[in-house]
Structures are given as structure tokens and as C-alpha cells.
């Protein structure tokens, strides 16, 4: 019976990856058929590429070492957008305002270096991205160091 045959295929976990890849291929094919998708001009994070800049693909615009001009979705929530302190969670912001023990350098935050390359305004992403990296490192190092 066809059901028995389908469930035979499904029950073997070696077949999961080909099945998933097949699903991806089908969806992408449908996507190609649905092209072109309209590009929405009023982008939240506009990007102007200055081909003449010496920093070409990485030039984020604006004069260096000052505030970057950043458009944000909720300007009222991020009055400090463009400064490195934008990263701070409400708790860290409270700490930074009440004590002298919280450095505000971008390097103080594990995500800082990575996210400076991305953009200066999205808080939680900065934390999650390096977390993914570190978790992957943790798994790899545990597997490497564990007793055989």
C-alpha cells in the first residue's frame, strides 16, 4: 500500500535530509516562478553605497568618529541611536547611570565588534548573534575535550 511505502521512507532518519532538501527545492522553484517580487523603496535601514569611497562596501556614511545618522523604526525608544550606548539593555542603562562600574566601550560587549559592522541600532540581535557562535564553540570544544 502507498501509505505503508511512504511511512517506510519517513521512518528512516537518513532520509530526512533529502526530504527536507527536496522540500526546499520545491519552495524555491515556486518562489522563482513568483518572481519578480516588488522592492519596497521606503526601507527602514537605507543603504547608500558610495562607490568612490576608499572604504567602498563598508562605508556606512557620515563623518567618522562622530555620530552616525541612523534611521530607526521607533525613534522614541532609542534616543541614543547611533551611539554605542544604544546597545545597553534597560538594566545595563540603569547600572551605567547609577554606578561607575559599567564600561560603555563597544568592546565591553561580546557582540559589539561583530555588530558594529552591521548596524548600530538593533539591541537584542547583537547579543543573540555571538551567542550562537559561542554555543557552537562550546559544543565543539566539549566534543573535542571529552574522554573517549
Amino acid at each position: 500500500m502507498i501509505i505503508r511505502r511512504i511511512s517506510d521512507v519517513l521512518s528512516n532518519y537518513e532520509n530526512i535530509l533529502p526530504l527536507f532538501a527536496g522540500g526546499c527545492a520545491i519552495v524555491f522553484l515556486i518562489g522563482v516562478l513568483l518572481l519578480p517580487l516588488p522592492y519596497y523603496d521606503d526601507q527602514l535601514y537605507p543603504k547608500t553605497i558610495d562607490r568612490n569611497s576608499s572604504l567602498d562596501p563598508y562605508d556606512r556614511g557620515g563623518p567618522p568618529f562622530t555620530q552616525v545618522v541612523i534611521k530607526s523604526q521607533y525613534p522614541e525608544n532609542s534616543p541614543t541611536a547611533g551611539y554605542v550606548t544604544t546597545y545597553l539593555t534597560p538594566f545595563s542603562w540603569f547600572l551605567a547611570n547609577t554606578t561607575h562600574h559599567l564600561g560603555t566601550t563597544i568592546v565591553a560587549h561580546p557582540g559589539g565588534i561583530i555588530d558594529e559592522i552591521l548596524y548600530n541600532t538593533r539591541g537584542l540581535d547583537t547579543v543573540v548573534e555571538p551567542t550562537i557562535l559561542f554555543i557552537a564553540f562550546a559544543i565543539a570544544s566539549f566534543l573535542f575535550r571529552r574522554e573517549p
Partner: protein
Amino acid sequence: MSSLGGAPWYILEFGDELVYFTPYTTTLLILALVFTVLALVSRPERQVEALFGTDAIYAKDTTVDQMRFRRFMAIACGCASMGAVVTGDLFNFTLFVALVGITNVGIVAAVKNRHVQNAAFQYGLVALTATVPLFAGAGIVAATTGTLSIVALASGTVPQAPFFARALLCLGVVGEGMAPFYAAKAEMFRAPGAPYVIMCSLSSLLIFLRVAEVVMVI
């Protein structure tokens, strides 16, 4: 705000990312929290096994260093799914979902059992592949609507996200959570350490529930 999950009770602002607590997301958050606490406080069980061809019955022990690592991974997984269910930003959501996929592999990575490891490897490959549709989905939403905030997308001030992007998001979450095709996941569940392996399934169910709301809203 569309009324799918109820009106938000509280909105927490992380700069450009809103974390919002509707009845729906709060329910999911509490469930993730409860099981994370369970993983934190309960010791692993000892699986009783019978050896084939003999009358020997023995209990598998989980060593302390294994237990520590797996507990760490289970808690990380719980935190990742908590983030995924409450976040109000599409890109942030995809990041959390990717984190869930990695920690799921981590939970069983320490188990010394060939069968479980093979399944975890297959699962890891699928989770790896699934990041492509996942981030592509978020990228297409950004390109066609100009924003990533789920609140803004739900309010109807920007164009609706195309069907293709939503399908990609679903596909990505299906891959990260291995949602309907559980063959590999079922094999992973043979590993001892119940409080931790439960997080594998819990996290994927939670992100699945959340993506259902997200694709209906955007």
C-alpha cells in the same frame, strides 16, 4: 496590532526591537520557563535496559560532567525558545530559532551512543540547511516591506509580506525544529537524561507555535 494572540499586555523596548507580551506569547513564555526550571532542578533519570540474549538488566548512569554540559545546553535552549516566542522582530526571531537548532544538537552531543549520535548528526545537517530558507525569508520580508518589526507588519501600514517569504519562514522553522518529520528526533529521544532531551521537543514545538502566529500576522 492584529488580534490573533490577543491584545498585548506589556511591551518591552529594546531599541528598535519590541518584545511584546500578548496572552499567547506570555503563555508560551511561561511554558518555556517552567520546563527550563524543571531542567535546572531535576536530576537525570537512570534508564533501565535489558541486554538482548541474556537476563541482565542494568541502569544507565549519566556522568557528572556530561550532566553539567547537557544541563547548560538545555537551559540555553530554554532561553533561546523564550526569546523566540516573545520577540517582536522578524530578524531577531530567526536568530533565536537558529540558536534553538544549535542547542538542540548540543543537548544530545554529549551522549555516548552511536545511534543517538547518528540521528543528531542528521538533525544537525538539516538544522544547518534550514538556516538558508530561514534567513532568506526574513531578508525577503525586509526587501519587500521595508521593515522587520512584526508590530509594524501587523498594523497594515506597510505592504503585506509576500507568500513566498512566509513559506520560506515556515520551511526554515520546520527544518530547525524538525517539526513534522520526527524520525531523527525520535531517535534522539532514546538518549538518557529526560529533563534535557525534553527541551529538544519543547523548543521546536514552541517555535512552531510562534511561527504559526507570525506568518498569520505579517
